[in-house]
């Protein structure tokens, strides 16, 4: 049995060796650090957070600025002017070949237009600073930088994930602990309501709400609420279960015998002991918020222009994916990597905070 040595306040084990007391959190942290995939996930999530939320401070290009001469440029480390010029010259050769081969006079017009563009671009390429830009991930159909758009899209997607998770956790904790602690008709009422909401085809309800919004309204805000409103169900059930299993334990009885009120018991004793499981479920829900938001944006019912989320970018990318695959792949890959990292982190947290979990799979 570890015991506390009165003189120096340090814990000793049964062999009379001094041991540092280990809290639940330190223990969990140790377990988490041992899980390589979870650590990798944590690093990736941290990098994403820093880059997306620090985007304004970092030297990225504007995500709204359009440049007609730079439309649909492929990813490249060369300056935009050089890439655009190379593409125009390629097109010119193709056109000339087509004209001489099949004698199509109707292409002459295109040829002269391209020749003029080449002349214009050649004149500007060394003087105009905009042609010195480098689009390492290419540009989209309006000549906007894909890197900047993906980063700002990530900002919106991650924000929605964060706000959704927090709201869902709040509502879930309050209703779950109320139902679990009070029991009786309150619990019954909340339970019935949760059951009802579960049997609702909720994404369809969100689709209805989003499509009914008058155009030009602040759809992001409604989206936050709509997604959060239906996502607290799981957390509230989990919290309720945890509270019920804890409320008859000895330490709660001890607190009550010392005169602690219901509020104190819930907030000081029951909730801190449920925090682990709340964190686990919140982390695992986070990616699903991002997926739901992107799902709506993909259908054209989510974030509206000029703002863009990952879902909007993917759906824009789908439009021209045969000719300009990077417009699809850049946002799709960035989003997937983030969701991947979040899932690994969530799994790692579950193993770390709840080592005896029945749900390990």
């Amino acid at each position: 049995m570890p015991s506390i040595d009165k003189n120096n306040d340090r814990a000793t084990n049964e062999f009379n060796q001094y041991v540092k007391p280990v809290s639940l959190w330190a223990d969990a942290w140790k377990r988490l650090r041992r899980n390589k995939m979870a650590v990798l996930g944590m690093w990736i999530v941290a990098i994403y957070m820093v880059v997306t939320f620090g985007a304004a401070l970092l030297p990225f290009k504007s995500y709204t600025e359009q440049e007609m001469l730079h439309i649909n440029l492929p990813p490249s480390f060369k300056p935009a002017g050089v890439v655009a010029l190379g593409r125009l010259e390629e097109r010119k050769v193709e056109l000339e070949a087509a004209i001489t081969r099949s004698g199509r006079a109707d292409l002459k017009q295109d040829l002269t237009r391209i020749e003029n563009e080449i002349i214009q671009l050649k004149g500007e390429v060394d003087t105009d600073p905009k042609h010195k830009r480098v689009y390492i991930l290419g540009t989209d159909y309006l000549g906007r930088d894909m890197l900047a758009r993906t980063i700002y899209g990530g900002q919106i997607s991650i924000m929605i994930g964060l706000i959704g998770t927090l709201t869902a956790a709040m509502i879930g904790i309050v209703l779950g602990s109320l139902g679990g602690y009070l029991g009786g008709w309150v619990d019954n009422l909340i339970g019935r309501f949760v059951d009802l909401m579960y049997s609702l085809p909720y994404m369809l309800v969100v689709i209805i709400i989003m499509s009914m919004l008058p155009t030009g309204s602040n759809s992001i805000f409604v989206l936050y609420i709509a997604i959060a409103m239906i996502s607290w169900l799981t957390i509230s059930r989990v919290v309720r279960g945890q509270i019920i299993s804890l409320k008859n334990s000895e330490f709660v009885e001890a607190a009550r015998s010392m005169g602690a009120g219901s509020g104190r018991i819930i907030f000081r004793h029951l909730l801190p002991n449920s925090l682990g499981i709340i964190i686990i479920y919140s982390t695992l829900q986070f990616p699903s918020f991002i997926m739901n938001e992107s799902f709506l944006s993909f259908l054209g019912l989510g974030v509206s222009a000029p703002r863009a989320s990952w879902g909007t970018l993917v759906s824009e990318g789908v439009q021209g994916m045969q000719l300009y695959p990077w417009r699809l792949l850049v946002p799709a890959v960035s989003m997937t990597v983030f969701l991947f990292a979040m899932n690994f982190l969530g799994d790692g947290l579950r193993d770390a905070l709840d080592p005896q979990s029945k749900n390990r799979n």
Partner: protein
Amino acid sequence: MSRFIVRRFLSVIPTLFIIVTLSFFLIRLAPGGPFSGEKKLPPEIMANIMRKYHMDEPLVKQYFRYMGDVLQFDLGPSYRYKDQTVNDLIGNAFPVSVMLGTMALGTALLLGTIVGITSALKQNKWQDYAAMSVAVLGISVPAFVVGPILMLIFALKLKWLPTSGWLSSRAGALTLIMPIITLMMPYFAYIARMSRGSLIEVMRSDYVRTARAKGLKESVVIRKHVLKGAMLPIVTYLGPAFSGIITGSVVVEQIFVIPGIGRIFVQSALNRDYTVIMGDVIVYSIILIAANFVVDILYGLLDPRISYK
């Protein structure tokens, strides 16, 4: 048992009633309507249209009229497709979605359990790691990313499969492959992870040790004892999986241009075709509720420890 079924069945009615009522008022209270289109109609014509569809009546009266019709299985006319009733529209699209959904769920269940069992039996070997990496990938990548990327690779670049369409087109059954893969991915992944986890847990349990101690062959232990116990969580998961596949098919039908109820749903939501949205919501809710109902009963049949009061 039969009392439980009856009681469970009766509890479906208020749920359905609340869903229909809720969506009716939600849709009607929103600004704009099916006829507020691009060009403004003269007020007299507008009034005539409104009268024809009883939309000039008070909302509550419209509600009772609608409920009365629904009870007689009449979902009303479509406001957009003037020559078709909602029953026609949904009747044509429903089999398509059901076919897509059941095929996706069936494939997910089959592949998921096979992969799950393999990796549980080969725990911590390379097969296990490979399978579980694929599973995390399946859970992390959303359908609207999987779909277009599959399309880009197999239809546009390699030209092995047709890009879109449904059975009736020239390519026939080949059109099914990509939609089914896209739709089943997350469920396949989840089922694989779940069956692996629960299999490992069951294999460590006392009754399996007893079975081994009796001298049963390993294959018999797995088949007769482990699998039966390990499949329970998967059965519970089928309810949520089914509802997920239904909503998931909205996106998949959109990507691959499949004439199912998901496509109709998005289209009518954008067109504010009230009756079609309502009809779709009712159909979806019935499917969902029925799925949960079946799962509850199955669960009782598989697990003798559960008693119905």
